[in-house]
């Protein structure tokens, strides 16, 4: 039992944390290192980087796209993420000493969020099963992530309602983990299950779809500004070389051959010199020299 306690509370948490941080770093690095060679900003797009940052922030915090698609789903999803944040903050009080005032103030909302969380997850799981199209397109991973969160939150709730959680030992353990000190294992009970599930979540999180929050910032459509300068930069940037082919190959019908054919055709029609546009226009009425666009048309 002693050895098992050391394994579960001494070794596994550090291993899980390493997987979490290492995995997230690996995935984020992989994404950041992937270029997007096709510039294709989503109209109406901001012209500069500040505008793009606001656009991302607005997408991340208000989720206008989801609101457009389905306001009820938007409410559920927004509430779910709020509850996850509150639950996270609720747990944070265990890892710091002394506990700051604002964290103590969040205890009541945190408890409420903890009770709402399984409900919201269940509704979203039911939605996935109830929609015929969504059910057809779902794979096991689409169920794994919410199921893991559901098990985690239900075990946490059960810990509080079925038995009395050993909060003093848990706090000592949490502080020990933060400070890299050995702490005695809490007595056996539902906390062990909750703790192991949390470690499982840490190990799973970097690899699966729970990384979607970081995925938003990859969106080329949302992330590309739209201006003369940005388009020129995209054309000369490193990424563009991925889609730009080498020097033009000689085709049977290149511009030079074409120029020769053009001359032949006009000569065949009895014209020995291609009439310039100005001469031709002067033969019509009211020709005017257009001064040019005189402004940044394309923005």
């Amino acid at each position, binding site marked *: 039992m002693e050895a098992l306690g050391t394994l579960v509370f001494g070794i596994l948490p550090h291993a899980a944390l390493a997987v979490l941080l290492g995995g997230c770093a690996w995935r984020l690095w992989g994404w950041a290192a992937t270029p997007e060679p*096709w510039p294709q900003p989503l109209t109406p797009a901001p012209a500069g980087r500040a505008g793009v940052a606001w656009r991302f922030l607005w997408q991340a915090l208000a989720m206008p*796209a989801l609101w457009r*698609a389905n306001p009820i789903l938007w409410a559920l*999803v927004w509430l779910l993420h709020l509850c996850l944040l509150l639950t996270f903050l609720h747990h944070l009080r265990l890892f710091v000493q002394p506990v700051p005032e604002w964290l103590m103030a969040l205890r009541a909302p945190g408890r409420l969020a903890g009770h709402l969380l399984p409900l919201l997850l269940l509704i979203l799981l039911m939605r996935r099963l109830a929609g015929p199209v969504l059910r057809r397109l779902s794979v096991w991973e689409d169920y794994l992530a919410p199921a893991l969160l559901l098990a985690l939150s239900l075990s946490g709730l059960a810990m509080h309602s079925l038995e009395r959680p050993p909060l003093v030992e848990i706090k000592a353990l949490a502080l020990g983990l933060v400070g890299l000190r050995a702490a005695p294992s809490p007595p056996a009970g539902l906390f062990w299950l909750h703790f192991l599930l949390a470690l499982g979540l840490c190990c799973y999180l970097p690899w699966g779809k729970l*990384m979607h929050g970081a995925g938003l910032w990859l969106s080329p459509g949302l992330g590309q500004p739209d201006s003369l300068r940005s388009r*020129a930069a995209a054309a000369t940037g490193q990424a563009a070389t991925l889609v730009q082919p080498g020097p033009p190959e000689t085709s049977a019908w290149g511009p030079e051959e074409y120029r020769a054919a053009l001359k032949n055709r006009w000569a065949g029609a009895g014209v020995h010199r291609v009439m310039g546009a100005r001469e031709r226009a002067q033969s019509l009425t009211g*020709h005017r020299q257009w001064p040019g666009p005189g402004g940044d048309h394309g923005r």
Partner: protein
Amino acid sequence: MAAESWPAPAMALGASADQACLPAQANDLEALGLPEALPPDWRQRLLGAFGQALEGQRGLRQALEACVGCGACHQSCSFHLGTGDPHNTPQGRADLARRLYRRHFSPRARLLGRWGQPRDILDEDLLGLWRAYFWQCTLCRRCTLFCPLGIDTSLVTRACRHILAQVGQVPGHVAREFLGILGSGNGQGLPPAAWTARHQALEEELLRETGQAMACPVDEQGADVLLIPSPQEPFSQSATYKGYAKVFHAAGLSWTTSTYLNQASNPGLWLGPRQAALVGRRVLEATRLLKPRHIVVAESGQGWAVLRNLGAVLAGGLAGEKYLKAKEPLHICQLSSRLLKEGAFAGVLRPQALQGVKPVFHEPCQVARSGGLGQEPRRLLKAACLGWLEMPKPVGGPLTLCCGAGGGLNAPELYQVRLAGLMPLARALAQAQRRQGCTAVVTMCATCQDQLGEGLAHFGLGLTVHGVHEFLGQALYPSRPAEARP
């Protein structure tokens, strides 16, 4: 039955799996520089191309790795609404690629290998699904506006088409269109003589209809404007095309078209970067041949979006062309709108000519979501036509519905797919017709015009289809009644 109550088709997985394009001929593939159809090592080739795309295209990677599968995109896709097929949702379409990703490229596959995985996921069945469903998407990007993560399905569709091309899986009509551009400057294979003859006929028609001598020049050097139209415009959409001539005439601008490139849209983009660049470079080559002062793209959705966003990537910038006054191509609506603002049409423009016409403005997807235009066509419509209407808000502006025909779906064998893709837009138009009493559709894309003209008749909507410049041209120089003509 009123169009608004057309039933949405019931959910049926694989309902349109058999609606695939006819494959390209072997000699066409050879001319394209692509491998033969399904070479013996096609699995390795396809996986190799897939891995390369994943490494080099963040948009593809995001779609495959970041999607939560929330389903918010399902009802945004015209093709899902029209066919009821889950494979035709943006999620389902990306899922066809994600199957390969999960098996061969995901972190799990890399860490655990084949453990717990199906042995061979890449078979002829999956290839068949790819061939069907990546050609049932018009890359209209409407789903991007409904995805909370901003995932762009057009990048998935395009990448997968390029991957398919790497194993010789190319639709015949796209191959022919591409080779047509390389051979005669346009996908329809119109020879320069036909183009020139048609333009002479247009000059005669314009003189007869308006009493004004207007030029429709071809291959003239040093013009103010090199117009890059769609090849069908002088023929089946000549009213819009005459609108361009009328605008240039009213403003006193010289213009020309080139028989080296008389197609704005770039079918090479559906085949691969190399092919896209070959067509993109042709714009530059045509410009160098004729040395115009401005490059102007006519009412073409994909042509404009590609030339504007990717022109410099594909062909290099225009900075070296000293004779050009604007270093980027202009859209014809930008040009006309600017001319309108400068007063070039003052005293000529009479919106009364279009009294009684009540058109609803269908903004093409490529213009509304990829084209950086918005105010310009509306300013022109406001000046030319007093009674024009916007589409209802849920499908207006950037949320505009796809017409169902762009993105290389113009093959005869895809007629049913196109009709299915048009269905949501037809429904919205029927609503506008009933509630707001609109009598016509006005749009600014040759493909939209073709598709709406063909498809709205199928749906029994008595709406006529027009281009923005058709109306502008009518307001500038209205056609005289037949009896008043000489």
